[in-house]
């Protein structure tokens, strides 16, 4: 891997930028690997990277049915925060935020992590009580989160409308200053390049169609659209398609897949300094470095794999955005798209061993797993390499839906989050 640096840019500028090597190669699949990761999103590519870097396991392939980063990693609104209620969640999301800080240096790739602050708006008495409870719980876990009055919220984000006349007036906000955004594509590309440099094969346009098991039930490899590939261990990191893949190994998972949409506006000059979220009215907004407003909408009500959602879902979000930020009422929206998110009953992910020997799963991140990419990949690599969970992901088992040890962020947030 040729290192990226200011000197490399200067050298290439003199040569007309003709000397940049490809960022990762596209090898033919080998007959077998020590580990196969299914799904080249950020979590899967990151897992391969940490397997190589931290566990010395480099005979690894990442298999992707489309193009790398083409799933939810490349479709999300990139909000990063760690102010979750329960100790287990604070543990895993904050592990991730700590890794975001320094990830660009670690990967030698600018992932544009920007801790510009995430402000979550409270619109009713219930929100105020829930957020204050979160703030106290977060501080006990060493996670920064602070309460702002409506006036302080407006000072932090000047376009915000704090009029009492609004349909859902702003009654205050919780601010996590270390929260922010990162460049989604760069996260996938950076992990892909760094993993490939350590010997990982990244194989695109290669759909896994079955999971093979030996007479003892243990995993022996996978069937793909590019032939049979052997493996001692298989890690499924397939987001919205996790149910489909786990079914191939006969494992039933407590997931449902829903469309989730996002949209961007025409680009404008910098007007929006932070990230604002409102779970109550379903609006998530920030401004990209290109100048577009990046807006997240809610999920559709029905399960689907179609990667499109209803227009009324977007309109509902824009209603809220226009009322919260009247300055945007005449803004034009450029494009919208959908991803398929895998939702668990308690809205917490599953990163665990499975009843099938050699099969591991990292799924259930639902509407909010981009923020967790580095942390999830890091502890999942540990789980696959050592055949036992890292302390950070130990609570995120598949068995918790049987033994009742739920991590009920769904109830804690009282809405989808």
């Amino acid at each position: 891997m040729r290192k990226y640096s200011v000197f490399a840019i200067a050298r290439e500028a003199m040569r007309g930028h003709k000397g940049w090597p490809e960022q990762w190669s596209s090898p033919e699949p080998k007959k077998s690997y020590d580990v196969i990761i299914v799904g080249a999103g950020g979590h899967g590519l990151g897992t391969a990277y940490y397997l190589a870097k931290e566990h010395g396991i480099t005979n690894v392939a990442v298999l992707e049915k489309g193009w790398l980063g083409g799933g939810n990693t490349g479709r999300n609104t990139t909000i990063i925060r760690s102010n979750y209620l329960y100790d287990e969640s604070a543990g895993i999301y904050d592990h991730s935020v700590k890794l975001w800080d320094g990830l660009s240096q670690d990967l030698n790739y600018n992932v544009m992590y920007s801790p510009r602050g995430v402000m979550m708006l409270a619109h009713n008495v219930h929100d105020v009580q829930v957020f204050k409870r979160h703030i106290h719980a977060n501080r006990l876990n060493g996670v920064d989160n602070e309460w702002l009055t409506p006036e302080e919220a407006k000072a932090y984000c000047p376009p915000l409308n704090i009029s009492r006349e609004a349909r859902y007036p702003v009654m205050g906000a919780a601010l996590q200053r270390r929260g922010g955004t990162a460049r989604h594509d760069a996260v996938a590309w950076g992990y892909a390049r760094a993993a490939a440099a350590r010997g990982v094969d990244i194989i695109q346009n290669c759909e896994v169609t079955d999971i093979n098991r030996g007479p003892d039930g243990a995993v022996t490899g996978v069937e793909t659209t590019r032939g049979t590939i052997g493996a001692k261990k298989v890690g499924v990191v397939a987001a919205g398609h996790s149910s489909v893949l786990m079914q191939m190994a006969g494992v039933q998972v407590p997931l449902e897949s829903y469309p989730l949409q996002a949209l961007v506006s025409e680009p404008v000059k910098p007007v929006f300094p932070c990230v604002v979220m409102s779970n109550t009215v379903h609006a998530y907004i920030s401004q990209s470095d290109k100048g577009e407003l990046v807006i997240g909408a809610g999920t559709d009500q029905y399960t689907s794999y179609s990667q499109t959602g209803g227009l009324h879902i977007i309109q509902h979000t824009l209603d809220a955005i226009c009322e919260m930020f009247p300055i945007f009422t005449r803004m034009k929206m450029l494009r919208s798209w959908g991803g398929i998110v895998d939702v668990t009953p308690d809205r917490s992910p599953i990163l665990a061993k499975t009843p099938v020997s050699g099969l591991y799963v990292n799924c259930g991140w639902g509407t909010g797993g981009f923020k967790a990419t580095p942390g999830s990949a890091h502890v999942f690599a540990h789980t696959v390499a050592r055949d036992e969970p890292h302390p950070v992901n130990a609570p995120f088992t598949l068995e918790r839906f049987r033994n009742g040890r739920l991590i009920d962020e769904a109830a804690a947030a009282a809405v989808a989050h």
Partner: protein
Amino acid sequence: MLLIHCPYCEEGRPELEFRHAGEAHIARPENMAELSDEDFERFFFIRSNPKGIVYERWRHIHGCARFFNAARDTVSDRFLTTYKAGEPKPDLDGEGK
């Protein structure tokens, strides 16, 4: 926006009139207290989540307010049929796509 045919009103209406109500044909066990943890998990948490034909419940909240069932292809979002609550699951093998 889906267009949904209510089998009671016998009319197709926009999705906005309806509320999705989860997977269909999941019978609530009558002996809940005796259920093993495994069976309870299967009843309460596990869903088939198919990429293909899903059998699901809808409620016509802004119409007749009744629950009914539908078979829908989750890849195209096309409805294959809707039918009244209590009617057997239609056999649609080989259809859809």
